[in-house]
């Protein structure tokens, strides 16, 4: 472990990616994630085995990733909401082609051009699959600079282990905010998992193909179920969430990312006021940590879902509880950053008699 540094979320992602062995980055500028693109420009070009490309578009970037990942490199791209929408075809291809890749969405206010303020409006796109076909991506929603550094490393490892794209979902404020961070050590790229399936010229082996065109319906169906079963396994293996003062909570706030930080402040306030509030903070947004939620639900608490959107994760909470506990919702779409006081008021409002 190295020493503490003060860094913006965007820079943290970049540095953590380099340390995790990322050697190919392609991206296209968009606020509020430009610092990440700029960081990678510097970092990749410092390495003699690193590539940085400022692509002509988000579409070109995601398709460059497809090529670089096929060729065996650990790859990353980043963008913000509108740019991520443009990557959806490519993301569906990455998923179908079973290619490891890390995709960062530093969300801004939408829909449309919207604004550059922090938002959580792209949850559905990331977790349900904004592209076509039956596929899922692992989606990680960190809430601090330090956690960012850690999930970036995880993201690259998951991508390789499960051969699929992994999303890091944060909002503009997390990308811009500086916090103290301690980074993991540099990974030697020679120690990274082998990729026997990669496309690097048929030297000393039969030629091989990476493709997603499966005209034979039975082959395509089998491929779909193969992916489906992998997703089911992942649900078992990697659900992650933080629980805070939930043991005896009568009202448990469920929030991720920036919203969760604010909620935590609100929970502390509530506790000071003698209200048994708690926080359940999903870290994996897909797979959604339903185990944690069902566990917490047992101490029959009510839930307050707080999102910086009109209510998207809310659906996954409902699906996890399937009617077992009462759910309240509070949302702020389009960019406003709530204060802990504001959420505390919501807690009071919904606190069970």
């Amino acid at each position, binding site marked *: 472990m190295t020493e503490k540094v003060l860094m913006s979320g965007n820079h943290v992602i970049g540095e953590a990616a380099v340390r995790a062995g990322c050697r190919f980055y392609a991206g296209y500028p968009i606020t509020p994630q430009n610092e990440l693109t700029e960081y990678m420009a510097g970092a990749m070009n410092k390495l003699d085995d690193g590539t940085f490309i400022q692509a002509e578009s988000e579409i070109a970037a995601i398709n460059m990733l497809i090529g670089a990942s*096929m060729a065996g490199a650990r790859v990353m791209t980043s963008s913000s909401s509108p740019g991520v929408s443009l990557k959806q075809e490519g993301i569906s291809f990455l998923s179908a082609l079973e290619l490891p890749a890390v995709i960062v969405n530093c969300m801004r206010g939408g829909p449309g051009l919207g604004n550059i303020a922090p938002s959580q409006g792209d949850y559905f796109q990331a977790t349900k699959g904004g592209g076509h076909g039956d596929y899922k991506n692992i989606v990680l929603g960190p809430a601090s600079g330090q956690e960012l550094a850690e999930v970036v490393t995880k993201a690259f490892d998951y991508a390789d282990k499960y051969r699929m794209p992994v999303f890091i979902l944060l909002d503009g404020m997390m990308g811009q905010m500086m916090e103290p961070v301690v980074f993991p050590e540099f990974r030697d790229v020679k120690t990274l998992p082998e990729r026997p399936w990669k496309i690097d010229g048929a030297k000393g082996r039969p030629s091989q193909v990476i493709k997603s065109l499966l005209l034979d319906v039975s082959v395509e169906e089998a491929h779909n179920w193969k992916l489906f079963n992998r997703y089911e396994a992942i649900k078992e293996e990697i659900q992650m969430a933080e629980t805070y003062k939930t043991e005896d909570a009568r009202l448990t706030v469920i929030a991720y990312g920036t919203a969760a930080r604010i909620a935590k402040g609100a929970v502390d306030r509530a506790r000071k006021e003698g209200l048994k509030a708690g926080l359940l903070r999903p870290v994996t947004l897909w797979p959604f940590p339903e185990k944690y939620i069902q566990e917490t639900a047992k101490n029959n608490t009510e839930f307050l879902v707080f999102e910086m959107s009109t209510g998207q994760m809310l659906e996954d909470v409902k699906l996890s509880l399937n009617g077992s506990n009462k759910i309240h919702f509070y949302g702020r779409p389009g960019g406003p950053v709530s204060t802990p006081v504001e959420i505390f008021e919501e807690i009071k409002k919904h606190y069970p008699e």
Partner: protein
Amino acid sequence: MSETVFSKPKYLKDAVFHYCPGCGHGITHRLVAEVIEELGIADKSICVPPAGCAVLAYDYFDIDVGEAAHGRGAAVATGIKRVLPDRVVFTYQGDGDMAAIGTAETIHAANRGEKITTIFINNGTYGMTGGQMAPTTLAGQRSTTTPGGRTPSRDGNPLRMSEMLALLDGPVYIERVSVTSPKNIRAAKKAIKKAFQVQISNQGYSLVEVLSPCPTNWKMSPVDSCKWIDEYMTKTFPIGVIKDNTENL
């Protein structure tokens, strides 16, 4: 005892082409396979096929193949080549794939001077999807989306992608050929070979545009299709070298 003067090249698999009778894809596939064999680069070549009739190229070429989404071949090839600079990476793309949806990726890869090679099959139509207008469809030419013939004022003009690319600093070698006669086919093979040599010698971006018959969608016999290319298509798309900055090949 008799010697074999012509037979199937080594790096084509045994699969029967799914192409229609008289389709230029088959001829061009063979030329590419012959060139790969002659240059001895089969074990370091990577093909990026298109979405288009040639999408099944991986059933035919016996080398590593990585699929690209429709139009994104140049971007995918860029990714592969940057990670593996000593491999020979080429895209094989149709006119819809490269000159319509892939316009930006193609132009910018060429402008970056990516050291990749593109085999650009200009058959003036969207073959795979059933004969819609392509950017390269001639003025007046019928297609399923221009039933009365392409009307430039409404449908746009035939797009000369190779000439546009030649204007950029990145490309080193661009030639337009056709596969309508044994003579033209031999010239086409020479061009393809040169394009690969440009990449092997690390000189930059190279492209060969192949005027290629699509009898099915042109609704002509294969023989007439070749005549039509020679007589009409070459008026808008003259064959020959369009740009050549190669050094001592």
